[in-house]
Structures are given as structure tokens and as C-alpha cells.
């Protein structure tokens, strides 16, 4: 058995049925191994999107997904996607071909030091020099990617190692032994008791849920906890979907792009329970203000605790375990006036949204779209104004809301939606992007057609790099420089070139009909909604 065949066997052992990739000479032996195997290869049109598609796939399947690239430029193209996945803690296995091990370090054709280049963007990386190490390395890589705080793991494999015969019989290890990696964390019973005591005494406890809740499959247990003890919840952008928007205990997204009543809830709470969130600058611009009251910080990653805000009580561990224990704890919640108080604030918060009657209003667009979408639909928001309009107006039901909150990588939505759709072909999947992000990823329309991942693409078009334009408006006296996308391209012709049914909408009145058509029927579709460039998020 060759190294390449062993790599394929390892993927099969891990239950991998699809890989996203882009071949080249240095990874050609692996592709020879894939040939005729039961693993489907999805050819993307640029390597970065192999990473994003795998990210969408991993988030939907809640398991590590695999992307494959060749050495040199193929590998370096993938780095942005790795950094994106790392910032959002998405489990990926990135396999990169490398020049022959004998030539390493000589700057031969298409050599790039991938381990060195990706060091701060991956959870761990391997350079495999012996084909007999392949089973162990793959086993470890999948284990590391999918345990603890999840993240991408890189496996860089020189071409000659892929070609070489294994000297030993292939045996996929059943267990992993890594001296320096012990992701199972025993929950500290004393800390847990202190948390329970604080909860018991608190009059106004508030849960702040981050993306870690979804990554840790913790939505059901958090929901049960909130409902059992009548504890309200706010969430970060990455934590959208922990509770449906209409759930009576969900008080929306916090932060400078969030709801005013969510931020007021944070202001009034006497106990904040932060779960799976890093409390970064976008969610809580002044974390030092938080330290004046009790903060419980629950995370799987010890290093997140106290990185941005010093908690009163840190609690490290798997949140499903922690909340299962807390569900059984004696916590008396004397009255439910706190949730009622927040409900009152929410009710009295004036909806300051003024729908623009010039062209399509983006807020109304997202609201109507999400109302019309299926109960379990998947919504992938790109980056820019469209992302903030989405987060602000999306009516979350029982589906998924995915975006890249940590890195903010433009061009994420289309490849990620393709990946997500391939996990659940039966679920309605919508990618929402601006004209900037679309033009960064429109090459992937071909991937979408090839793989029959029939996603719906909504392009919010304002002919500008809107969020930068908005920034220049507020900070540089409306000196718009380098943000004008002008008239290009003709999106209808782009859609036609890929055989995608296409429509446009340019008024609020026509929106209902346009959205019904957009969401209806079978197959892929693309809708361009014209939005006035003067519409700002703030």
C-alpha cells in the first residue's frame, strides 16, 4: 500500500465521503488514490473556497471536513480559509501536497513552507516524512480538530511520501496518545458549586451565548436550562440560533451591531453567564465595564478565560456536561419579574428602523426573506453591510445562521453554503452577499452547478463596498476612495453563463413576489436586490 492509498483509507476510516479540493502535481499521488474510491471529490475553482466549503460542511455536519490542495501557491491560497476557520473554531482537516522530502528547503518549484506559514492559523500541523506515520497522523489530526476547542489541522505531505510503500501493515489506530494534548477537562466541582450559589442568589442572571454553544452542540441543553430556571439569554453574532428569535427568553444579539434592548439587558443584569464566547471587541466594546458585576465565564478553552475580561468565576469544561449538572442543581428562582422587566424594555424599544422607499430596503429585505424561509432553513451571511443587516433583522427559527464572525472573510457565503447544502440537500440553503463578496467568489457558481448544491444566492447590490464606504462616510468626511464598484458586471449574464435562473428586484412593493419566486421551485436561483447606496447600517 502506498502512502497515498493509506491517506484515502484513513479518510474512509473517519467516515469521510466528500472532500473539497484543487489538485496539482505535488498532491497527484493522493488523487490517484482517490480515483475509483467511494470518496467524492468536489472541485472548487480556487483553493480558498475549498477551505470555506469544507467549513460550511463541517458546521452543518458537526464533524471535521476535509480540504485538499497542492503545494506552493495552492497551499498558500488556502491560508485565508484556515485563518477564517481558526478564528471561528471550525474543525477542518487540510491536506496539502508538498515537494519531495529530499528537496525540502531548496526553494524548488512550488515549494512553500506550509507549516511555518500556517503556524498561527491552525490548531496543529504535521509534516509527514515517513509513510508509516500516516495512520497515526490522520487519527491524531481528526482527534485534535474535533475535540476541545475545535479548529483546523494541517497535514503537509511530500510527494515522495505519498508515493512510497508503507513498510508496515496498514492499521488505523483505535486510540490516540498525545502527551501534550488532553482535551477532556474535569469540571472543577468547587467552581461549579460557586457558580450554582451565585445563580441561586442572583436576581437578574443573564446568559450570553457565543458560537461555542453551537460548536459544542449545546443548543438543546442551554434551551432547557433557560426554560427551567426562567433565565433570559442574549447572544453574539456567532451565537445566533441558540434560541429561536421568537423564544420568549431570547433578548437578541448584543454588541455594537446588536439590539439596544440586548445591551440594556447586559447593563441591568446582576450576573452575567458568558458561555462559549470570547467577549471580543465587537460584542462588548468595553469589557472592563463588565468587571463591576459578577461574571461567570464558561468555556472549553482555558486560555479564553480572562483573555479579554477577568471573570468572577471561571468554569472550564464541556458545556453540555456543565449545564447537565446545573440542570440538576438546586437553584431557586424566586420570581420571574426579571424576564418580564426585559420583555417590557423590549416591547418599549422603539423600532428605529425606517424603511427606505428608494429601491429595496435591506432591513425589510432580510426580515421578509427570513419570514418566508423554511423553519429549518440554512442562512449563510457573507461579510459587510449585508452581514450586519442580516444579523440585525434575521428572524431565526429552528434552522442555522452561519457567518464568519472572527475573521470577517469576504467571499465566505457562497462556498460555505455549497458545503452546507451538500450535508443536507433537503434543507433550503440561502447565501446572502453584497456585490463585493459576490465578485470575490462568483467563480464558485461552477462548483455549485457541478456538485448539484442548489443553493439560492441573494445579492444585495448597492454598487459599492458598502461597509467601507460607510466607514469613510463617518470617519473620513465621505471621502469615498477605492470603494466604487460601478456598473460591472451584468449579473444576469453571469447567472446565464452558469445556467442559473435569475431575477431582479428594485422596490419594496415588488419584494414579496420576488422572494416567493426566489425561494420557490427546484434548483439553484439568483436574485439581485437593488439597494440604495445611501443606506447605512448605523
Amino acid at each position, binding site marked *: 500500500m502506498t502512502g497515498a492509498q493509506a491517506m484515502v483509507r484513513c479518510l474512509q476510516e473517519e467516515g469521510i465521503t466528500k472532500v473539497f479540493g484543487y489538485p496539482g502535481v505535488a498532491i497527484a499521488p493522493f488523487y490517484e488514490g482517490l480515483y475509483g474510491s467511494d470518496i467524492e471529490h468536489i472541485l472548487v475553482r480556487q483553493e480558498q473556497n475549498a477551505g470555506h466549503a469544507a467549513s460550511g460542511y463541517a458546521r452543518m455536519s458537526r464533524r471535521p471536513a476535509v480540504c485538499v490542495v497542492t503545494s506552493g501557491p495552492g497551499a498558500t491560497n488556502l491560508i485565508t480559509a484556515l485563518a477564517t476557520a481558526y478564528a471561528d473554531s471550525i474543525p477542518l482537516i487540510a491536506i496539502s501536497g508538498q515537494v519531495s522530502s529530499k528537496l525540502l528547503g531548496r526553494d524548488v518549484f512550488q515549494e512553500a513552507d506550509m507549516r511555518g506559514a500556517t*503556524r498561527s492559523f491552525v490548531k496543529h500541523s504535521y509534516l509527514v516524512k515517513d509513510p508509516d506515520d500516516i495512520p497515526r497522523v490522520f487519527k491524531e489530526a481528526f482527534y485534535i480538530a474535533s475535540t476541545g476547542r475545535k479548529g483546523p489541522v494541517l497535514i503537509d505531505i511530500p510527494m515522495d511520501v505519498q508515493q512510497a510503500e508503507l513498510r508496515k501493515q496498514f492499521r488505523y489506530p483505535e486510540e490516540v496518545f498525545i502527551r501534550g494534548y488532553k482535551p477532556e477537562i474535569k469540571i472543577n466541582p468547587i467552581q461549579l458549586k460557586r457558580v450554582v450559589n451565585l445563580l441561586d442568589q442572583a436576581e437578574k442572571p443573564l446568559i450570553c451565548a457565543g458560537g461555542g454553544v453551537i460548536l459544542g452542540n449545546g443548543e438543546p441543553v442551554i434551551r432547557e436550562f433557560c426554560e427551567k430556571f426562567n433565565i433570559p439569554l442574549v447572544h453574539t453574532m456567532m451565537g445566533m440560533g441558540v434560541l429561536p428569535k421568537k423564544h420568549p427568553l431570547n433578548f437578541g444579539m448584543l454588541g455594537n451591531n446588536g439590539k439596544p434592548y440586548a445591551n440594556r439587558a447586559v447593563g441591568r443584569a446582576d450576573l452575567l453567564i458568558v458561555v462559549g464566547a470570547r467577549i471580543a471587541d465587537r460584542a462588548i466594546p468595553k469589557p472592563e465595564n463588565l468587571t463591576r458585576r459578577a461574571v461567570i465565564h464558561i468555556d472549553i478553552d482555558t486560555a479564553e478565560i480572562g483573555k479579554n475580561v477577568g471573570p468572577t468565576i471561571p468554569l472550564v469544561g464541556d458545556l453540555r456536561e456543565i449545564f447537565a449538572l446545573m440542570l440538576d442543581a438546586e437553584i431557586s428562582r424566586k420570581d420571574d419579574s426579571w424576564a418580564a422587566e426585559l420583555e417590557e424594555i423590549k416591547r418599549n424599544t422603539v423600532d428605529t428602523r425606517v424603511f427606505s422607499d428608494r429601491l429595496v430596503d435591506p432591513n425589510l429585505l432580510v426580515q421578509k426573506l427570513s419570514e418566508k424561509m423554511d423553519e429549518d432553513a440554512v442562512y449563510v451571511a457573507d461579510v459587510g453591510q449585508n452581514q450586519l443587516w442580516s444579523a440585525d433583522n434575521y428572524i431565526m427559527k429552528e434552522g442555522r445562521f452561519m457567518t464568519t464572525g472572527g475573521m470577517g472573510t469576504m467571499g465566505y457565503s457562497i462556498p460555505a453554503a455549497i458545503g452546507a447544502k451538500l450535508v443536507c440537500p433537503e434543507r433550503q440553503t440561502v447565501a446572502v452577499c453584497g456585490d463585493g463578496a459576490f465578485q470575490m467568489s462568483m467563480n464558485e457558481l461552477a462548483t455549485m452547478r457541478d456538485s448539484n448544491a442548489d443553493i439560492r444566492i441573494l445579492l444585495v447590490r448597492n454598487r459599492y463596498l458598502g461597509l467601507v464606504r460607510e466607514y469613510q462616510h463617518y470617519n473620513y468626511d465621505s471621502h469615498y476612495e477605492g470603494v466604487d464598484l460601478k456598473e460591472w458586471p451584468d449579473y444576469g449574464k453571469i447567472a446565464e453563463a452558469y445556467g442559473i435562473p435569475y431575477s431582479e428586484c428594485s422596490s419594496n412593493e415588488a419584494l414579496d413576489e420576488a422572494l416567493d419566486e426566489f425561494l420557490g421551485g427546484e434548483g439553484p436561483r439568483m436574485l439581485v436586490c437593488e439597494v440604495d447606496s445611501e443606506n447605512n447600517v448605523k
Partner: protein
Amino acid sequence: MKGIFSVLVENRDGVLSAVSGLFARRGFNIDTLAVGETDNHEISSMTITSTGDQRTIDQIEKQLNKNVDVIKVRRLNEAKSVCLEMMLIKVAYNVSNRTSLIELCQLMGASVMKVAPKYLLLEYHSDPESVEDFIKVLKNYGIIEIQRTGTIAMEK
């Protein structure tokens, strides 16, 4: 504040760069770094000293612990540890100050490794503070070249 970390790592290629890269990426400062194999050739031991506020020193420990190639991190208390540093130093001398330099070496316990016509090559090891002090004094004679190992430390 000063942080002294005794770190056991996998003795593999790339590990040193991963550890030092971690410091660079997060803006932590490395004051000294000393690395060597342990009795188990698969495992190396590093002593890293750093300065920063409490949050920084805590973060260094946590981030080191996250690295898969890092097996164990121990934070050492300077008062409860033996901290040593070694240096080789070439010090210029002339006829008038040679005697005082040699007396100083005897007083400090520095060994003369080579006597050259214009300089002495000295070896000196002690706690980091004494090494600093010794260098300050030697500056009066003229330092030609200096090599320091960085601190190694062990809990008492």
C-alpha cells in the same frame, strides 16, 4: 512582573519555532530562552523568562499549554527556584588594569579560559542578577564580545 516558565516539549523539528512564534504572535516578550534535551531524547526542556503584567504572564502559561507539542508547563517562583545563567565574555585589558581584572575574577569566581595579548576570555555562571552586575563592572575594562546562555531554572 517576571515570569519563569519551565516547559517540557516534544523534541521534534519545528517545536522551538512554534513556541517562539507563539510569543511573537501574541506580542509577548521573550527575555531569555534556553533549550536542551532531557534524559528522554524524545523530550526537550525549555526555560523561558518573560516580563509583563499579570494578565500577560497568565496568558503565556495558558497559550503554551494549548500547544499540542507542549507536554507540561510549570511556572517557577524565583525565590523558590535555583536560577542560573552562564556566559563567556572577552574583556580587554592593559598593563595598568590587568591585576585588578584578575583580582575581580577571583573575587567573583569567574574562570579565565584564555589569556590573549589584549583580552581575557572569562567564563562566569551565577544567578541572572549577578551576571548582569558582573557585566556592568566589566564594562569599565571594555567588553569585546559576550555570549550568554539564557536562564535555566529548577524548583528547589
